[in-house]
């Protein structure tokens, strides 16, 4: 089994199928995005394109994907074409009936965003009262319907003291996975970064704790997707590539068909409706640059450089303007 392979096409596509949302989160990366949506016929054409490109899985996001008309029909088609279909939702609209419909439509996995084990903190953060309770209910209904569930939490000031609580919540909700997302500082996340983002040393402490929990806790996968944890001798997901996976294994499609390397990088590399997907994948100078990062500054003398490659490309780009700079969350040489 070999390393460092850039697949001939994306393995996964994240697709913001709508940007409509029933929430008003402080860290939203897409609220300012276009509200334009593709019609059903175009969505089906895109599914065929992705199928020809042998993409494995499609993860619907947004916005709130359940606000997309025909979501179930779209998912059914995707799953008939052989994709592993999943989505990220805030869970507010998932009751028992909807969970059953999602299962029927072919959803294999659904991730629900919950940012705190404390209902009031989550509700405040997400801007909707009662949203925590409904998210927890949603997990129960989904599991009951036979769909694999996960929780996604964006780590920031509001939950940093409660990482153990998040894990306990995940265990009691019997999810397969909890994803700790690093704070990306894109979209509204950028505007609110001063009140939400952690300092590098806080990030270090968070990751030390999360890794301890990952080793200790049974029956729950704790996913950490941040390349800078290679400093702690850890890796994020088990992938074939080093550093950020952005632009190497997956692509992001926006609600109007624009393609970006990931949901947190606002650089449009083409449009799935009008451009050739394979040409973009193979020839985009932006993707090329992301796949061949040349970390600078303190990265040059860092022992973890070959694994970390300068950290999270999206965050580094958002905060410093140059993806080759050291990741601003990195705590090396910080005291």
């Amino acid at each position, binding site marked *: *089994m*070999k390393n460092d392979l850039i*697949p*001939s096409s994306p393995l996964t596509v994240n697709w913001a199928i709508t940007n409509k949302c029933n929430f008003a989160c402080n860290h939203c990366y897409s609220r300012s995005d276009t509200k334009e949506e593709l019609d059903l016929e175009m969505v089906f054409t895109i599914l065929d394109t992705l199928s020809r490109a042998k993409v*494995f*899985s499609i993860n619907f996001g947004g916005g709130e994907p359940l606000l997309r008309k025909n979501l179930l029909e779209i998912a059914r088609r995707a799953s008939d074409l052989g994709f592993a279909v999943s989505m990220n939702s805030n869970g507010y609209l998932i009751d028992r009936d909807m969970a059953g419909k999602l299962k029927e439509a072919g959803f294999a996995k659904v991730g629900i965003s919950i940012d705190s084990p404390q209902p009031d903190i989550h509700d405040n953060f997400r801007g909707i009262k009662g949203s925590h309770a409904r998210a927890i209910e949603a997990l129960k209904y989904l599991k009951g319907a036979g769909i694999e569930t996960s929780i996604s939490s964006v780590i920031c000031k509001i939950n940093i003291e409660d990482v153990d609580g998040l894990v306990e919540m995940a265990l009691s909700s019997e999810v397969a996975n909890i994803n700790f997302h690093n704070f990306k500082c894109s979209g509204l996340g950028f505007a609110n970064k001063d009140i939400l983002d952690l300092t590098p040393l806080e990030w270090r402490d968070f990751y030390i704790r999360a890794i301890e929990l990952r080793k200790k806790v049974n029956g729950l996968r704790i996913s950490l997707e941040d390349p800078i944890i290679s400093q702690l001798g850890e890796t994020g*997901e088990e992938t074939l590539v080093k550093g950020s996976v952005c632009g190497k*294994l997956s692509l992001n499609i926006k609600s109007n068909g624009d393609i970006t390397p990931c949901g947190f990088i606002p650089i449009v590399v083409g449009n799935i409706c009008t451009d050739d997907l394979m040409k973009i994948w193979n020839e985009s100078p932006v993707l090329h640059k992301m796949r061949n990062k040349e970390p600078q500054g303190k990265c040059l003398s860092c022992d973890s450089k070959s694994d970390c490659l300068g950290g999270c490309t999206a965050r580094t780009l958002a905060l410093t303007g140059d993806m080759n700079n050291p990741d601003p969350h990195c705590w090396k040489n910080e005291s």
Partner: protein
Amino acid sequence: MKIFRNPDAMWREEDESRDQANQGLETGEDVADIGTSIILHSGKMHSLNILGTEIWKLLDGKSLDEIVASLQEGFEVEEEVLREDIKTFLSEMKEEGLIYEE
């Protein structure tokens, strides 16, 4: 004993790399490092070289003997060497939960 691919594992061949590896085989180059297919399972990714890919494709209920016999035709290696390679590959696959036996 029959060996099967885990149906939950998603996999695909990488056409270009496969062609490259096939060409290499013809000209006698070492193609062991060329990944010609990708498997995705349980959030983990695996890349197989051309021999691995050909073994993987045969795992639809064939026995070890049948796999060896079938691959013997395509790869110019001694049967014993091939058998050992296949056994090592299968035990790695089994450890990763990518195959099962019946």
